[in-house]
């Protein structure tokens, strides 16, 4: 594993029991099937995938907002999953999260000021009138007026609410922030404002981001490195340009070709994948992408043997036939 990484995640597994009853054992949803990744200081790693790929579970599991079944998470050398209460509290000051839904993630009965101040008070980062000054400074940093502190979430638009969510995460001066689809609920004209703000904050504060997203055009704007997830595992990983311009995994290629580009002149080959991803309760024995794969070299091995992530060309790829174009 790369030395000097701020965050190191290895072989993370999370399964959820689903359904079941008195005479029926529950089925198991395989959300994470051995996820490994690293994030360097001041770096943005984008975790890309469609719904059900496990990207949101990954973000929560590495912050221990839910408990993984297996694997390790190290933040600045500290074992996150084995941390006791006191250590975990210290870690939570340094690792924060911004959620997708700016409507659901703020307490509607708390003023914006109280919401932003919550973390400052819990971690005793300021006292008395200093708290208010700090809240107003944070609101200014995300582009809101100081008077916003006395209002309630419903008085703000979606974009402004997302700014409040960002201020709340930054209140405790974290080094690392999980951004879980931070702009996918926003209108296009507002999305650009928030993306620019996140880039400015990263530059000014030296933040590391795990940017969870499904939109590759947005990811291109934000990420240094990209990890593509499918069925709870990374199927391709590399630098932004390598993944976007020289993708090797057939899924990454299909995903790229499916992005609707606002330009009728761009002539691209559209790869339309058949069907849906396999059910999360019944993992296929071989490559999880095999049921939708269009690769010319696809063979029986794809149905029986799971491909491991390995180095091919400039990226890491989990495909038996990554060498064949």
């Amino acid at each position, binding site marked *: 594993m790369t030395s000097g990484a701020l965050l190191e995640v290895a072989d993370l597994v999370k399964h959820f029991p689903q359904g079941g009853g008195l005479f029926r054992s529950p089925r198991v949803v395989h959300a994470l099937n051995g996820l490994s990744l690293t994030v360097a200081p001041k770096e943005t790693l984008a975790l890309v995938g*469609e719904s059900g790929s496990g990207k949101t579970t990954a973000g929560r599991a590495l912050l221990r907002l839910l408990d993984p079944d297996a694997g390790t998470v190290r933040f600045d050398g500290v074992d996150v999953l084995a941390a006791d209460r006191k250590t975990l509290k210290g870690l939570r000051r340094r690792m924060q999260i911004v959620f997708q839904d700016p409507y659901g993630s703020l307490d509607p009965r708390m003023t914006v000021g109280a919401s932003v101040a919550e973390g400052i008070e819990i971690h005793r980062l300021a006292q008395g009138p200093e708290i208010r000054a700090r809240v107003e400074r944070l609101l200014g940093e995300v582009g809101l007026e100081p008077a916003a502190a006395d209002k309630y979430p419903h008085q703000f638009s*979606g974009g402004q609410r997302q700014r409040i969510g960002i201020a709340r995460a930054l209140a405790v001066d974290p080094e690392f922030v999980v951004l879980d689809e931070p702009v996918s609920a926003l209108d296009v*004209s507002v999305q650009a404002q928030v993306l620019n703000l996140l880039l400015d904050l990263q530059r000014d504060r030296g933040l590391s981001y795990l940017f969870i997203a499904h939109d590759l055009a947005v990811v291109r704007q934000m990420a240094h490195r990209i990890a593509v997830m499918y069925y709870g595992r990374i199927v391709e990983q590399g630098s932004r340009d390598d993944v976007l311009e020289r993708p090797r995994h057939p899924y990454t290629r299909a995903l790229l070709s499916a992005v*609707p580009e*606002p330009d009728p002149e761009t002539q691209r080959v559209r790869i339309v994948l058949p069907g*849906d991803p396999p059910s999360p309760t019944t993992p296929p024995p071989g490559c999880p992408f095999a049921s939708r794969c269009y690769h010319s070299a696809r063979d029986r091995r794809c149905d029986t043997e799971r491909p491991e992530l390995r180095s091919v060309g400039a990226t890491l790829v989990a495909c038996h036939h990554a060498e064949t174009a």
Partner: protein
Amino acid sequence: MTPLLTVDNLRVTFPRATGPSTPVDGVSFSIDRGERVALVGESGSGKSLTCLALLRLIPHPGVIAAGSSIRLDGTDVMTLEGEALRAIRGGRIGLVFQDPMTSLNPVLTVGYQVQEAVTAHRSMSRAEARDRTVALLEEVGIPDPADRAGAYPHQLSGGLRQRIMIAIALAGEPDLLVADEPTTALDVTIQAQILELLDRIRTRRNMAVLLITHDLGVVAGRTDRVMVMYAGQLIETAPTPRLFAAPAHPYTQALLQSMPRLTGPLNRLASIGGSVPEPTAWPSGCRFHPRCARRIGPCAAEVPPWREAGPAQEGRCWLIEGQAP
């Protein structure tokens, strides 16, 4: 040839304690037979209410204001009642909504729901209705249609549910298919499937399609003409390639510049300041003027006229110097 659909000065009003609000305010357009038209706008622009108005489905207590005109193939939709109105709803105009999970009845099989739509507009024997249902399911690409007809909505994936919605919309053999954000709730690879399906069906049946979306990327290469809506009004209409190559309205220009892209130079995104106004407080003059980077003298006070901006391109902006169309 007269257009299939002509909408003239459409206004939708909602009564409020402080006076009526007008979320759709003077919208005029027409659609030809077999034409593919997109209506593009952000949330709150009035695009969804415009499409509901075509079927006179404005939710209570909203009303279509007097003086609004909707003509379908010469028929005055505004004066229709009872059976005649029902023949249009789901008959001559088919409707596909964004979220198939809330539009489908969870306790009835999907086959039953498609068959209900088949028999709603034509009387036929039970065997004939069943055959017709299976044929429709096959047309929208449901695998094992006869078998899947017995499935309940929750047993199908999001993509298959949206295919069922399309089958229902096609059951009445519509001349116009109105699709309101048909792929917004879906993953990109599934979105690609559904857009391709809509293209295929339209070509085979030669029906007109009105695609309502917030995503200019979805529109490019899939429609003949785009209408852009902002704050309850149309602000620009143009042939699709022309809109992308030479947008006339500053809002359209800003919207295109603020979209992250997969190709081309990677620059900081241009963002539009502020947020979309509320229908209770439309700005004076040009409704985009508070956010417009190119505003000039008359913009704040005087409503710009609708003018010709280029070949088959029209817009509502003081910077457009053409004639009234």
